[in-house]
C-alpha cells in the first residue's frame, strides 16, 4: 500500500474502525429482509422471486454481470424504484419488524433509516456544510449547534473532517472525486441510518480513493447493515461477510463470502468467477 493510503488509514478514527472480520458471517441479527421480491419495468420482468436477509454488523455484497438485476434489487430496498415511472415492485420487504413495501409506508421517514450512496459522486451545488445540513434542515432540524455538531460528526464518520474542516463553506465541487464520494457518505450518515446501500460506490474512483472508501465501509458496519453492489470481485471478497450472486434477474446463490468465492455451488457462479463472462 502507498504511504498516502497509510496516512489515510491512520486518520480514520480507530475506535470506530475496530477489528473487522470479513469473509464469514458474524451476526444472526437480521435488520432487513426480503421475501419473494419481483421487479417489473412495464412488461419487462427484471427480477424474479428474490428472498435475502441482511444482518446487523455485516456487509453483504451483491455481485453479478451487468443487467443481472442487482442494482434493481438494491433500489427496491429503500423504495427508490417507486421514483421510476412504470416500475413495479411486488413481494415483502421487512424492516424493523414490518413490511415496508406497502402504499401506507412513510417512505420519507424510511429513507432516513435506509441511506443510499450512488455510483457517481453526486454532491449538490452547495457548500460542504450545506451538503450535509440540507436534508436534516428539511426534516426539521433547526438548532444551529445541533447542525454544527452533526456536520463534524458526519465528516469524522466519513473520515473527511481533517481534510475539509477549514473549508466547510467552500463549494463541494472543489473536492476531488474520492472526497466528493466521502462527502456523499457523510451526508447519508447525518441521517443516522441503520442500513446503508452502496450502488457501485467506487466505480468512478481511482484505486487509492477506492481503498479509502472500502476502509470506510468497514468502519461503518458497526451496528449497521451495509449492502454493496459491486462489479469488482476483489472488492466484494475484501469487504463483505456474505455475498449474493445475481444472474439474468435471478438470485442464483447466496452464502458466506469465503464459500461463494472459494467453493461456488452453481455452475453459472463458477463460470462468472473464472471469467467466462463478465
Amino acid at each position, binding site marked *: 500500500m502507498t504511504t498516502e493510503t497509510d496516512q489515510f488509514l491512520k486518520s480514520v478514527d480507530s475506535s470506530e474502525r475496530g477489528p473487522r472480520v470479513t469473509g464469514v458471517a458474524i451476526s444472526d441479527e437480521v435488520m432487513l429482509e426480503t421475501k419473494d421480491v419481483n421487479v417489473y419495468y412495464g412488461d419487462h420482468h427484471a427480477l424474479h422471486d428474490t428472498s435475502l436477509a441482511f444482518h446487523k454488523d455485516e456487509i453483504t455484497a451483491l455481485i453479478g454481470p451487468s443487467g443481472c438485476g442487482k442494482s434493481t434489487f438494491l433500489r427496491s430496498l429503500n423504495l427508490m424504484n417507486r421514483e421510476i415511472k412504470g416500475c413495479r415492485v411486488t413481494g415483502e420487504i421487512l424492516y424493523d419488524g414490518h413490511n415496508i413495501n406497502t402504499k401506507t409506508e*412513510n417512505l*420519507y*421517514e424510511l429513507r432516513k433509516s435506509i441511506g443510499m450512496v450512488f455510483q457517481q459522486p453526486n454532491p449538490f451545488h452547495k457548500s460542504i456544510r450545506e451538503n450535509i445540513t440540507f436534508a436534516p434542515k428539511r*426534516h*426539521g432540524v433547526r438548532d444551529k449547534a445541533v447542525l454544527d455538531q452533526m456536520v463534524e460528526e458526519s465528516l469524522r464518520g466519513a473520515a473527511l473532517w481533517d481534510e475539509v474542516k477549514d473549508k466547510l463553506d467552500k463549494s463541494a465541487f472543489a473536492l476531488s472525486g474520492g472526497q466528493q464520494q466521502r462527502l456523499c457518505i457523510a451526508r447519508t450518515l447525518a441521517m443516522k441510518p441503520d442500513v446503508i446501500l452502496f450502488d457501485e460506490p467506487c466505480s468512478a474512483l481511482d484505486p487509492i480513493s477506492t481503498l479509502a472508501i472500502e476502509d470506510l465501509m468497514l468502519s461503518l458496519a458497526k451496528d449497521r447493515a451495509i449492502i454493496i453492489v459491486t462489479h469488482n470481485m476483489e472488492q466484494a471478497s475484501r469487504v463483505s461477510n456474505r455475498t449474493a450472486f445475481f444472474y439474468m434477474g435471478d438470485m442464483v446463490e447466496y452464502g458466506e463470502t469465503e464459500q461463494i468465492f472459494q467453493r461456488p455451488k452453481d455452475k453459472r457462479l463458477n463460470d462468472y468467477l473464472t471469467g467466462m463472462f463478465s
Partner: protein
Amino acid sequence: MAKQMPKRNLEKVGLSVTGACVALVTLVVVALIFMVAQRGISTFIKDGVNIAEFFFGTEWNLAVTNEATGLPYTGALPLIVTSFAVTILSTVIALPIAIGAAIYTVEIQPKFGQKVFQPLVELLTGIPSVVFGLIGFHVIVGAMRAIFNVDLGLGILPGSIVLACMILPTITTLSIDALRAVPQSYREGSLALGYTRWQTIWHVVLKSATPSLMTAVILGMTRAFGETLAVRMVIGGVEVMPTGVLESASTITTTLTTSMAVYATGSVQNDVLWSLGLILMGMSLIFIMIIHIIGAKGAKQRG
C-alpha cells in the same frame, strides 16, 4: 415554511400546485378551441350562411349585402387560396436555402456553423414580424416595382419572400438538429465504401434524416400560414381571387386584422370572421397531426 409539514402532505401540495398550473393551461386551450369553433360554426347554423358558398364562393365583401340572400358576400375561397399560395411559395423559397445552410453547418464547417452561423440565424427568429413587414414594404416591394416594372409591387410574391425570410430560421435550426442526430457511423460507413462527401450527404445523411426534415418543414409552414402583420404590410389587402403573384390580394389572417375590430360581436360579419379563425385553428391542428404521424412513423421504423 415556518412549521414543518409532514412530507406526505408537502408532496400533495407540490402535486396540486403544479397540477393546477397545467390544468389551467389545458382549460384555457380547451376554452379557446371550443369558443372559436362555436363562433365559427354559428355562421352556418344561426346566420344561415351556406357552407359551400363560404368555402367555394369567390366573392368576399362584408360591407355590401347580397340582394339574393340578404347576407354579405362571404365567399372565402380567394382568401384561402391566397393563404395557401403564400405558404407554399414561401416554403419553396426557404426550403433549399434552409437545408443547404443546415448541410453546410453540420457537414462542411461545423465549427464556423455552430459559433457564427447558427447564432446569426437564431437572431432572425427574434426579429419582430412588423420589422420584417416594414423592410418588406420598403425594400422588397420597391425591388418588385423596379424588377417587374409594376405600379404597386404588392402581392403574393413579396409576401412569400418576406415569409420565406421569417420561416428560414425555424426550418434551418430544426434541420441542423435533424442532421446532427444522424449517427456518425453512417457517414463513416459510407466514406469507407469510397463515396465522396457529397454522395454521402445526399444518399445517406439526408435520406436517414428525412422524417425530421419533414417535421421542420411542416413547422415552418405552420408559422407561415398563421403569420399576420408582416404579410399584411406587403400583400395589399384586397380581397379578390388572385390572378397573379404581383396583384394585391389578401390572406385569411390579413383579412382578420383589418376587419375584426370593425364589426360588432354577434353580427353576421363578425361570425364569418370567426369562421376564418376556425379555418386557421383547424389548419394548425392538422399541421400538428401531420407532425405526430411523421413522428410515429419514424419511431416505428427505428423499431
